[in-house]
């Protein structure tokens, strides 16, 4: 079990309020991702749940029990840190066994669990090595192993992949998702990378300046962003915002159109523009187009769309995929 409920959770460091009061329910077995720009309070929120920071006010419940004042170890949670935080003076086996040793489990049971965790995480051949002799990916797996053996009611991940290179990040992303399917345990995952959020989450919590901007499934957030912040943060490349005169046809102060929802033509269209930079990714090409009377727009084209710097193109937004936003940045539906 691992249902976590936050009620009016507030955190201040001195006079600085980092989290002004958050209500959030995380269901048992859910994979929840906290995403937001740096300094938005997502790591602080995770550390509050872990018990590594004290809440200023509000309550945190895990499986119906109020743990607001409980020590980290008493909450039944396991955490994987950005820096892995392995014990450098202990072997891999001892690192994984450490929480069990602290729980005063007998040695035979510890050995069995460590062997099993090492098998699941492909670490069997490395059990006697020190963390310093492992690669980044292996270290990350040891950190996950140390978390798994405790059989926690929820896993907390604090930007676990940001120290890895791009290729390894992709692999580890799959491994963590796979682990979630196997264990079916609640996982809370903090990241600033919206691609990680979109690909892994059952539920995404978008944070900005300590506030929850929107909670929903990845596709919910993509298709129905509640406000300008979420619209701009979710999706890559980010959504284009059209303002003033150009937004008039949609009767809103701001209209949002994603790069993939603009049709491109060399002959005719709603807007005429000149291609600035063209980013060729192979499968897709992202064009940065200066459209007359609209401004800079990013447009996604097929990888083989024949275009170069300085070409004139015509753009037509997909009318069914326009997002309208009011004066205060909230979505108009």
């Amino acid at each position: 079990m691992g249902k976590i409920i936050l009620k009016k959770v507030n955190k201040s460091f001195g006079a600085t309020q980092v989290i002004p009061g958050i209500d959030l329910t995380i269901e048992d077995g859910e994979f929840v991702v906290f995403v937001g720009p740096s300094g938005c309070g997502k790591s602080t929120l995770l550390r509050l749940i872990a018990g590594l920071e004290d809440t200023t006010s509000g309550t945190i419940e895990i499986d119906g029990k109020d743990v607001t004042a409980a020590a980290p170890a008493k909450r039944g949670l396991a955490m994987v840190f950005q820096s892995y935080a392995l014990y450098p003076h202990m072997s891999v086996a001892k690192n994984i066994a450490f929480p069990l040793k602290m729980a005063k489990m007998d040695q035979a049971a510890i050995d069995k669990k460590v062997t099993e965790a090492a098998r699941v995480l492909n670490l069997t051949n490395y059990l006697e090595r020190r963390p310093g002799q492992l690669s980044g990916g292996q270290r990350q797996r040891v950190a996950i192993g140390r978390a798994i053996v405790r059989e926690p009611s929820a896993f907390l991940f604090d930007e676990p992949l940001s120290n890895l290179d791009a290729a390894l990040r992709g692999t580890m992303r799959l491994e963590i998702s796979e682990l979630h399917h196997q264990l079916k345990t609640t996982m809370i995952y903090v990241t600033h990378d919206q691609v990680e959020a979109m690909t892994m989450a059952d539920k995404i919590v978008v944070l900005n300046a300590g506030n929850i901007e929107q909670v929903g499934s990845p596709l919910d957030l993509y298709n129905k962003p509640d406000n300008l912040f979420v619209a701009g943060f979710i999706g890559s490349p980010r959504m284009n915002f059209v303002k003033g005169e150009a937004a008039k046809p949609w009767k809103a102060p701001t209209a949002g159109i994603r790069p993939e929802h603009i049709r491109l033509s060399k002959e005719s269209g709603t807007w005429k523009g000149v291609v600035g930079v063209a980013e060729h990714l192979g499968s897709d090409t992202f064009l940065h187009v200066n459209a007359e009377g609209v401004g800079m727009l990013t447009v996604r084209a097929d990888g083989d769309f024949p275009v170069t710097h300085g070409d004139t193109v015509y753009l037509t937004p997909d009318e069914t995929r326009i997002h309208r936003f009011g004066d205060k940045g909230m979505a108009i539906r």
Partner: protein
Amino acid sequence: MARAVSKRRTIAFTIAAWIVALVIFFPILYTIITSFKSETEAIQGFNLIPSGTVESYAAVQAQSNYFKFFLNSVIISIGSTLLALLIAVPAAWSMAFAPTRRTKDILMWMLSTKMMPAVAVLVPIYLLFRDFGLLDSRIGLTVMLTMINLPIVIWMLYTYFREIPGEILEAARMDGASLWGEIVYVLTPMAVPGIASTMLLNIILAWNEAFWTIRLTTTNAAPLTAFIASFSSPQGLFWAKLSAASTLAIAPILIMGWFSQKQLVRGLTFGAVK
């Protein structure tokens, strides 16, 4: 890219380094040389080649029991070091990992006590020792040296602990370690090199401490510093005997320092280069 250093420069620097080292080491060397001279030779002026007699050593041992002083030195320096570590590890832990707004001030204040001339507090401390019956006792001297060196021990450990990432201690906390478990299983093993060099340095400082050890002892608790001092008597200066006594006093710490120099250098330069 490493700078290319010409061979001639390397040789010049090597010679210069040897000269500096010799100049620094010379007083110790001359003490050792003098200890192998007879008293007549010793007062005859500068002479680097001794006759090789060991009569001064025999005389020194006959006059006062070296091993009693040696034992006192060992007990007091190791005892005060262990006691200082016992206090300093938790203190440095809290300063490094749970600092308050005043932590920096406390650290500076502790260091400032080292700048006060010891003689300024001689009378009050002497009176306190007298009233508590601590004069000429090993316990009294151990406590005194612990207090004198505590600021340095805390500072050194604090510098070491600061280098240990806080996330590792948080991980231990998540893994169910108590505060004590965190210090014993995680922090201390990781800081072993730092604790070891702090220990070595403190033993050396305590071994060499001569102001308080001479003033607060007479016979029972007197360590080797008092042993040397006892040979500069009003009856006259016996250079050869004084040198023999000094050699005997510094030999143990010199040997220990030689074997642990790597550890010591690492300890003293730790944190200087990241």
